[in-house]
């Protein structure tokens, strides 16, 4: 497994008159070839900021305050890996969309309402791929076939398409240049479950045939467990837990992950107690000392203010790749169990 996109120690802040809002701090995340990585967290946890920041798509007042994003693709002629945060604008333009493509949040509104679908798809292709008009048209037709939209819909305006179809158009546009990495920011949030499942199945199918990697951003943990190979859980601008879907499902280590897993009702199996996560995330202008989850955490100890939020392998975990930022709480055996995780004395070294 070779890394395609390697986010290292990335920090992003929004400069405001009231001080910096540290939307992402010291984030490390690797996306390997052909992998589906999930990024999960509440609104305001910094997940979209992280994804856009990694492509340098943020505008002031957002500033990248540190870190690097190493991209090791195959296509660009330059020496690999390159640091996306430091490449000259010309190369950046070549990397964007051709190598790293984004399916933006709320596809309902991401399409221009006064342009036909064809014109929007072709517009992007002319800018990034330098295709002739007839070639671009041919390619647009192929893209619609790929995502299962009838060809005659190319002449439609966005309002003539259903929500699911608009979402598919967005996916088709992202795939136009055969990218290595596709970042999907809440691509199915506004859709019905039946349409959602259909689109997810399609994404995975396309991933298998075209061989790209996916960074899938959503707040719906239940979706990620079913879809992703690995899941990163983000809270208050930091990744608090990272591991395989099975690790997170069966032995969630961070109290926040445990809370997320107790937040959604399940249709299958016996009814289980749901508790949710009371409280709200901290103000990132003035992040609290130590672990940002302390005010909402049921296991907080006085020593938690000294936690530095670096990711350590889960104590007693099955895999060294399952890491958590909480040195206090041990994994719960099964998210659904009533059993309270233990907080042994002296666990904090």
């Amino acid at each position, binding site marked *: 497994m070779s890394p395609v996109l390697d986010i290292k120690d990335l920090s992003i802040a929004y400069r405001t008159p009231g001080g910096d809002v540290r939307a992402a701090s010291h984030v490390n995340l690797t996306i390997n070839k052909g992998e589906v990585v999930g990024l999960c967290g509440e609104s305001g946890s910094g997940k979209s900021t992280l994804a856009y920041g990694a492509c340098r798509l943020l505008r002031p007042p957002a500033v990248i305050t540190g870190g690097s994003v190493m991209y090791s693709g195959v296509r660009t002629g330059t020496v690999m890996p390159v640091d996306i945060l430091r490449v000259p604008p010309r190369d950046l333009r070549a990397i964007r969309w051709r190598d790293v493509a984004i399916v933006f949040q709320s596809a309902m509104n991401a399409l221009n309402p006064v342009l036909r679908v064809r014109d929007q798809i072709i517009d992007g292709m002319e800018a990034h791929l330098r295709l002739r008009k007839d070639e671009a048209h041919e390619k647009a037709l192929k893209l619609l076939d790929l995502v299962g939209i009838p060809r005659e819909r190319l002449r439609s305006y966005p309002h003539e398409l259903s929500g*699911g179809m608009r979402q598919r158009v967005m996916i088709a546009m992202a795939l136009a240049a055969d990218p290595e990495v596709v970042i999907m920011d809440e691509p199915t949030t506004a859709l019905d479950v039946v349409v959602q499942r*259909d689109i997810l199945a399609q994404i995975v199918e396309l991933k298998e045939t075209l061989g790209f990697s996916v960074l899938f951003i959503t*707040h719906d943990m239940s979706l990620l467990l*079913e879809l992703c190979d690995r899941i990163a859980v983000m809270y208050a601008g930091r990744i608090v837990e990272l591991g395989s879907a099975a690790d997170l499902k069966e032995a969630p280590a961070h109290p926040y992950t445990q809370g997320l897993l107790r937040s959604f*009702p399940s249709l299958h*199996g016996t009814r289980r107690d749901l508790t*949710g996560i009371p409280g709200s995330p901290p103000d990132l202008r003035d992040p609290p000392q130590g672990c940002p989850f302390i005010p909402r955490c049921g296991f907080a100890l006085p020593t938690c203010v000294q936690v530095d939020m670096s990711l350590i392998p889960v104590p007693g975990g099955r895999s060294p790749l399952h890491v958590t930022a909480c040195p206090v709480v041990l994994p719960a055996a099964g998210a659904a169990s009533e059993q309270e995780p233990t907080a042994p004395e002296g666990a904090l070294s």
Partner: protein
Amino acid sequence: MTQDAATTLTSAAAGNGPLVLEATGLSKDFRLGRGAILHAVRDVNVSLYKGAVVALVGESGSGKSTAARMLAGQERLTAGTIRLNGEPVDVRTGRAFRRYKSEVQYVFQDPFGSLNPVHSVGYHLARPVKLHQGRGVDVKQRVIELLEQVRLTPAAQFEPKYPHELSGGQRQRVSFARALAAEPNVLLADEPVSMLDVSIRLEMLNLLDDLCKRLHLALLYITHDIASARYFADEVLVMYAGRIVERGPAEEVTQQPAHPYTQLLIASSPDPDNLGSVLKSGNSASRARGVGSGPAATGCPFSTRCPLADDKCRAENPALHQLTAVRAAACWRLSEAAPALVHGTA
């Protein structure tokens, strides 16, 4: 067994309290111009009981919001009757509309759009109190009480705030408080949590459930998330193309769905326990059936997507067929779709 289901079928929510709002044969047509007519809601029966939650589940465009807007008095009925406390409702005059509104309140989906950005929380709550409770009420005191009811505490601190200073969850609490300000008996909640984070949804649903039990409200919960209906509702009504295709107790409908559409809905919901999901392997067999083909114009509306559909399904629309005392489904081929249920009652 196929007799008039509407008369013999009892609601699974009936045990909780007295009947408040009853709609029978509710239909709504929209004229689309050039003689085309959209049947948004067709022959829907809903009964709301005090202290009970009824969930209306369906995809976008299934008519669930239109049905709710008719119950709220905001949409003229094409056919059907609505009875409030046994009295037929007529909301054509302004005064009658206001009286009806003091009994039946609506909670909107979008907490970001349903509050006026230039008014404070206190103003949003004081207005309905003044409108519906008349003179002689200590408005200020009542506003504080409302805020405490939805657990926005300390209430005095929230009262002067503006919507932009609140989180999504807090805004939705203000929406709940605003609906409660009229002291209604019926609450119609149109996707009250779908715009909120998963971690906050549960808290809000628990709050709604608590309000419903404590204030003895009848609640209609409209959602496309059938999993939350399982946990939250007493009765589930599944809507497709303007019709109710299945109804019954929440646990029974979600665990043993009878109608092929309900089965598809449940199979499509994310299943976190399914770690070895077909989604991961990219198996094309996992593609949902017939997404994109709309409801059929004649016959059973689901026949275009249904794996069991035959010529009869495409020609004639099935009526609700009673399965047990509290369950019914509208399908010609129930003996194949849900053999255990049909033969259990035969």
